[in-house]
């Protein structure tokens, strides 16, 4: 089942690759939307039929390279299933959004189908090398998206992105090799490693392994001070690319913390949790403050990602601070972290798709050049407003549920850090309100773009159809979160049990 979900887009890509480019845009776009829709339906079916008792569902373990301890081992639990679902949904949204794409459609569609397989694969992988393969391929795929369809200094940003995240991925590989060599018998299997806990009591060696893995994941997440690749990559990527980069690829880092770093190195994680909390809090505040100073809409959203991912890092760090909190609080923090990953994926992807509207109409993201856009484009203004409120964590949206759980779960163990992090919400609230005020209200003023008319066209059908479901889902999670939390909670309890060893 999982294999089908993961590889369906890739198979579709191979089939579509055989269609000549001269067939026009239609077969590619229709095929793309069709496949992503089927994949999303499959994920929903898998969700309904899955066993939410805290263990793995749909587990499959096939020998791949036995002599190197590598296996094709996949499965989903409460930590990964929500992310799989979010990924499938985001790719569907991007497919719909890109209906109006005209530039080299065939390669674009093939690349996104490839990226979808890679992203879904990563969240289902239960083998370190399998995880690494997907992790690296996601970098390759996104590199071509940014370099091929970006704007501005796209080539340069793509190169920065590739080099940075590739350094991270290789640090990760060193950490994985460290885990592999420590285990007896040598294996890359995540479940087996979690059971064996091979690095218990291995002081400096374990610390080095955690450092390598931590750096790898921190670059991808990204947390301060490894975030510098993010703003240029986001700013110069095409809208759909930014949405996938922020919505899905960033989660690979935070997901790695809950799937690999915490359960496989429990003792070392607890030892250094304080440092993780500090990094998380710095990311929260720094991301928010820098976002406040941005003139460029897309850049601002990129920095709020640093801020939002900071909450996740804070939560996983606070979970490791064993003294001063009980199992329930720790579990709550992890649940909040996973919820935040899903919530941020939905909301930020929506924001980036909406940011694409600015560029599509007027060729710039400079907020100083716009004013009173709500007049000609009320739908656009409303959608952006909703997304902004969702992003700043207003009750009734998924972000609130996530952040509330994170803060409640972290407060007891990391009191000062949590108190400081709450300020981040205040700053993001301020900056989003300022944006709404400056760009959408007031007298109409638009930047001059060659070839553009005098008006600012409202959202097209494809834009509405792609963005609204994301926001709607954010509201649904915000109002009736039980269906999501019931899946996550048993898995976080299991995780807490593993970290407690």
């Amino acid at each position, binding site marked *: 089942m999982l294999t089908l979900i993961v590889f369906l887009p890739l198979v579709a890509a191979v089939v579509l690759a055989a269609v000549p480019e001269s067939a026009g845009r239609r077969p590619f776009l229709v095929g793309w939307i069709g496949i992503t829709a089927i994949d999303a339906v499959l994920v929903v079916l898998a969700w309904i039929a899955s066993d939410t008792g805290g263990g793995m569902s749909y587990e499959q373990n096939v020998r791949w390279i036995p002599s190197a301890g590598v296996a094709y081992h996949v499965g989903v639990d409460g930590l990964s299933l929500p992310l799989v679902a979010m990924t499938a949904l985001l790719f569907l949204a991007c497919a719909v959004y890109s209906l109006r794409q005209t530039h080299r459609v065939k390669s674009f569609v093939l690349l996104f189908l490839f990226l979808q397989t890679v992203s879904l694969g990563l969240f289902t992988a239960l083998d370190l090398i399998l995880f690494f393969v997907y992790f690296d391929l996601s970098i390759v795929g996104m590199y071509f998206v940014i370099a091929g369809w970006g704007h501005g200094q796209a080539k340069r940003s793509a190169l920065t992105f590739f080099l940075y995240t590739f350094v991270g991925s*290789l640090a990760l590989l060193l950490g994985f090799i460290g885990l592999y060599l420590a285990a007896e018998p040598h294996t890359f299997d995540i479940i087996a490693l979690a059971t064996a806990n091979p690095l218990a009591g291995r002081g400096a060696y374990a610390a080095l392994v955690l450092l390598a893995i931590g750096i790898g994941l921190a670059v991808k997440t990204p947390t301060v001070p490894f975030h510098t690749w993010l703003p240029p990559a986001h700013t110069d990527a095409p809208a759909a690319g930014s949405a996938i980069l922020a919505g899905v690829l960033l989660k690979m880092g935070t997901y790695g913390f809950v799937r690999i770093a915490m359960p496989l190195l429990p003792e070392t994680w607890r030892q250094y949790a304080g440092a993780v909390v500090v990094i998380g809090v710095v990311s929260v505040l720094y991301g928010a403050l820098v976002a406040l100073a941005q003139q460029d809409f897309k850049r601002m959203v990129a920095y709020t990602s640093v801020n939002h991912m900071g909450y996740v890092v804070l939560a996983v760090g606070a979970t490791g601070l064993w003294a001063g909190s009980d199992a329930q609080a720790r579990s709550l923090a992890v649940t909040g972290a996973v919820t935040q990953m899903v919530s941020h994926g939905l909301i930020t992807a929506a924001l980036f798709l909406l940011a694409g509207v600015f560029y599509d109409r007027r060729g710039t993201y400079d907020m100083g050049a716009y004013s009173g856009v709500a007049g000609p484009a009320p739908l656009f203004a409303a959608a952006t407003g909703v997304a902004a409120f969702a992003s700043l964590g207003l009750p009734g949206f998924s972000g609130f549920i996530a952040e509330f759980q994170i803060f409640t779960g972290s407060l007891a163990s990391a009191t000062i850090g949590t108190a400081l992090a709450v300020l981040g919400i205040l700053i993001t609230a301020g900056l989003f309100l300022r944006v709404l005020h400056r760009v959408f209200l007031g007298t109409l003023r638009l930047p001059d773009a060659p070839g553009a008319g005098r008006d600012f066209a409202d959202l097209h059908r494809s834009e509405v159809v792609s963005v609204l479901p994301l926001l709607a889902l954010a509201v649904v999670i915000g109002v009736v979160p039980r269906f999501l939390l019931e899946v996550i909670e048993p898995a976080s309890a299991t995780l807490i049990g593993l970290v407690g060893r």
Partner: protein
Amino acid sequence: MNENPAALIPELTLVAGAVLGLLLGSWLPRRRQWWVRVVTACACLAGIVATGAAMAGEPQKVFGDSYAIDTATNAGRLIVLVAVLLVICLSSEEIGAHPRETEFHVLMQLGALGTIMLAGASDVLLLVAAYLLASIPLYALAGFAKDASGTEASLKYYLMGAFLGIALLGGTTILYGSGGATNYAALARNLPTAPPPVVGIALVAVLGGLLFKIGAVPAHFWVPDVTEGAATSVAAFVTTVPKIGGLIAAYRLLVDSIPAVSLNWPLLVAILAAASMTLGNLAAFFQDNVRRLLAYSTISQVGYILMAIAVAGKSALALPGTLFYLGAYAVTNLGAFAVVAAVPRTTRLEDYRGLGRAHPMLAGGLVVCLLGLVGTPPTSVFLGKLEVFTAAIDGDFVWLAVLAVLNTVASLFYYLRWILPVFSPASESTKVMVLKGRWAAATAYLAAAASLLLGMAGGAVLPLTAGPLVP
């Protein structure tokens, strides 16, 4: 004493192929020389079949324990023969219908034979003979085109080779003098009683010869010049094939004859590995000529493989890592050269602008091979790197593994410098983007596919590389 010639069928088929090719070439009219190509290919195929049979058999030593037939030799035979087949395909357009086509194929077979003998030699004298056989035909090949740059390359290659060949011979003499034998097993018994400084000097001299063969620092100066100056097919051959024999020979020499001597040779090899990968990468950074870029990239690749040699005997993964990496590297590197051969008029990185539009398949093959050389999963070099890194950490060379990781990242930069123009819009001078070679292009597709397949089917191939050396 086992003097069973049947154990040497892969080597003998190459000899037969070379002799038959030479005879045929002398009698055939110029336009019918492609028969020699067929003979060469048949010799390789026969050799591959014979190697397959040998793999199923027991490991053994033949001819006075001077030649080992074991996992390493068989893997070396297989990789060399497959590599020669690929070179035959990619050279079809460049060498085909050339007046001296016969010479090319005969010399190539002799060079391949020397390389295989390097891999199997377990006697220092045989190592010297194999070194000469693997070198001299290649000097001639380097000057095959008979133009100024080829002649210069050939001369430089020859001078370096002659100098380090003398060093190898000198080292052999000292080993014989201090150990009283030339056989590896006998050396291993006798050397511990010999004075360590003398053994050290001998080892350095012998390693010098092998470093020349594999193109590692500090014997790497010929690599960029030969790669740029010689014909593309020759460049593909000399940057790929001799390394296979040279690295296996180094592994065997260090493990079988020097183990009990109180020399810190692992550290020496580790330093050579570090120097090779770092210098190769740094020099590749701003190369504008694709062949020079590939040349420096091969120098750095040798550095990665030397990591496994440094932990030879200490980590169970050292031998499988070396052999698998060699196979993966051979396929991937030849794939990149096949792309160069398919669009022969492109020499600079800038010339590759618009390749993605003009020939998407070829561009795809190039990207797979280049990312493969970086070590991006799931290509085979990734698996090779994984094995080699793991072996290095397992053998307590963590600093070397970290350095290799940093080097991998650095190497990404210059491979991307090549990939990026491929997908850029074409410039005005796209006339150079003429796809000349159908065979060369087909080789590129084949090699790229093989590189991916070898990586994904690593589970089936890796066991072939595991197995002890014959003592």
